[in-house]
């Protein structure tokens, strides 16, 4: 599951990084305190794992925060890193979620320059196909919002890449365990 893809006007067709395909999704429940993120990031950096995406927000109980991390790297070492994170005093729990057991969503905003009505119509068609929304529209530009599973966002990106994209912003994925599973 690709989570980080740089698209710039200079580089329209980036090759997907093979190590990102099948990226891991971790969730953490942690104390909501300054410095906690620093501790967690150090565990990953020291073992040369890249954090491809990171979403942090306050939990329902404001004493805690929820994290979703998209991680790429060797799965063998990852289970050890999960234990090293769990060991941190500020971490209540840390789990890896498999795609079949969890709902994963993210949101992307894409700014496309559209000079001329023809291009604009094409872009809007693509966006509609993916259930996206137009959130900003000017004579020369359009910002679209696409949300869903990361691979859906990726697919939309792949189609839009042929247009004049100037900026993209992705939230990074958030995860929730299905059924009675714990996130």
């Amino acid at each position, binding site marked *: 599951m690709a989570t980080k893809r740089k698209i710039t006007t200079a580089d329209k067709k980036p090759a997907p990084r093979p190590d990102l395909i099948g990226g891991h999704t971790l969730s953490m429940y942690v104390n909501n305190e300054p410095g906690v993120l620093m501790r967690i990031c150090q565990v990953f950096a020291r073992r040369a794992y890249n954090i491809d995406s990171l979403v942090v927000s306050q939990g329902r109980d404001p*004493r805690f925060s929820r994290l979703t991390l998209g991680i790429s790297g060797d799965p063998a070492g990852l289970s050890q890193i999960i234990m*090293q994170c769990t*060991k941190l*005093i500020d971490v209540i729990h840390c789990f890896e979620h498999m795609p079949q057991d969890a709902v994963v969503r993210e949101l992307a905003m894409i700014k496309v320059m559209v000079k001329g009505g023809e291009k604009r119509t094409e872009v809007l068609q693509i966006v509609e196909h993916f259930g996206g929304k137009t959130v900003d529209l000017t004579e020369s530009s359009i910002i679209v919002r696409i949300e869903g599973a990361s691979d859906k966002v990726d697919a939309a990106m792949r189609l839009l890449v042929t247009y004049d994209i100037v900026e993209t912003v992705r939230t990074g994925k958030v995860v929730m365990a299905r059924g009675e599973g714990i996130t």
Partner: protein
Amino acid sequence: MATKTKTTKKRKPKEQLDGAQAMIKTLADLGVEYVFGYSGGAALPIFDALETVKSDIKFVLTRHEQGACHMADGYARATGKPAVVLVTSGPGAGNTITGIMTAQMDSIPMIIITGQQVTWMLGKDAFQEADIFGITIPVVKHNYLVRETNDLPRITREAFHIATTGRPGPVLIDVPKDISQSPFTGDMNAEIDLPGYNPEASYEIDDQDIEDAALIINAAKRPLILAGHGAMISGAEMELMELATRLNCPVTSTLLGKGVFPETHELALGMLGMHGTAYANKAVCECDLIINIGSRFDDRIIGKAEEFGKNAKIVHFDIDPSEMNKMITPDVQVIGDAKAALKKLLKKVDSLETTSWLEKLDGYKKKFPLSYAKQGGLRMQKVLDEFYELTNGEAIVTTDVGQHQMWAAQFYKNSESFKWISSGGAGTMGFGFPAAIGAQFACPDETVIAVCGDGGFQMTLCEIATACIHKLPVKILVLNNHYLGMVRQWQEMFFDNRESGVDLEGNPDFVKLAEAYGCKGINIKRPADVRKKLQEALAYNDGPVLINAECVKTDLVFPMIPAGAALEDMLTERPKHKMAKPIGST
């Protein structure tokens, strides 16, 4: 005429503490005996509280903050209890890093309190402001930057709890000056609040894991117990002895596990690993079962991981789940406190028939004994061997890092826990002498010997002053080869004997140096004098004594397994052929 004054009963004002006083009171409540430290501006309120709060806490002014950490470390290793380090902000705090890292690597409980700039100056590069919270995250078990005066007692108590339970480690508390100086209006008994920390769980051992372990153990023919520091921390000496004798199973220990199983016992094989005994390493290669109790399979004991115990099943007991599968993938893992786990295991295992296995190992003991050349000058091994004899192996021995450390590990056999104090994981030069001071404070009636190289001793020798002031009868043994001997050994063996950055020319006259501090000094130059001079040192108890032993300059430590090589590739003598540079590890 004096007017009659109304005699109002003077009401004692309600005791108003400031944050620093509340903190020191909490430390006293927790039973802290010693604070080692070095003063400075940001820590002034805390130093003042040491004077204004009545308590039994004793403060020791060291000569360097690193020394303070190693003293607290030595104190903890000799007692199992933590001591406190108290230093100022910025450079004071910075000087503690190596000491904290040393404690973290070897799971040593320690509380480090650092003064800090006032809160509103943080992040503004104010005088002596350093982000010590951020700097120390990778080298502590946990740390705090205190933001509320009223949190001080709770945080202090949490720090203590975290440092001393589960797998122990250092905890740092950074206290801005305004926080320590402000009035304390909170609850001195505020409860600790650590929802992400549950060390009690380590006493619940999974029954199935014990069953699985017992199944493998009961089927073994050539078992080997590997005893680590974890067994010592959990106090599992009796269970370990019971297990070894019931199974008729030989026991090897790690550098930090020395003493948890008596090294003089007939089942003991001594230390394993890079400079371990040949018979311990042979046992690892030939056994069919390794029962690892509280060792983290450090790279210096396993050598090439793929080859380690390749003929053996492996059972790994560890309190820290993140040690499982890290270096070695065990067949059975038992997570939890070693003593609790062994108690359960002992209900499930029977005696084993291992006569031929033990005979085989005895053969190795005879074929590859630890020995040294009696000719060719004064050898470190000889001095250590004599010291061992003269103290009946009962002294507390601390070491620095290098050749002398490995020889001390080989020749000073330990029969008890907490009597061997050596920096293992970090391999910190400069550790040995201050650690001995800490151990001597903890155990005033024991003989404490600091075994140092001439290199490492010079890193923290300023603490002679500390030892002298407190009249601590520490025996400082400087095994002087005028070289950074261990590094020179590697250069001789793997770098065509090209010496680079290892010649300690410019060494002082150590005896004169000691005398300048008011410390007794003794020189040993000839093998024939060793016993007499050591006896003289042992008989002197009015203060520290430094023994400078002029040793062979270019001796090599054997056995040796080159870093990253398989245990089978052990060298027991100077190699005749050129060696490849080790690449697997350092």
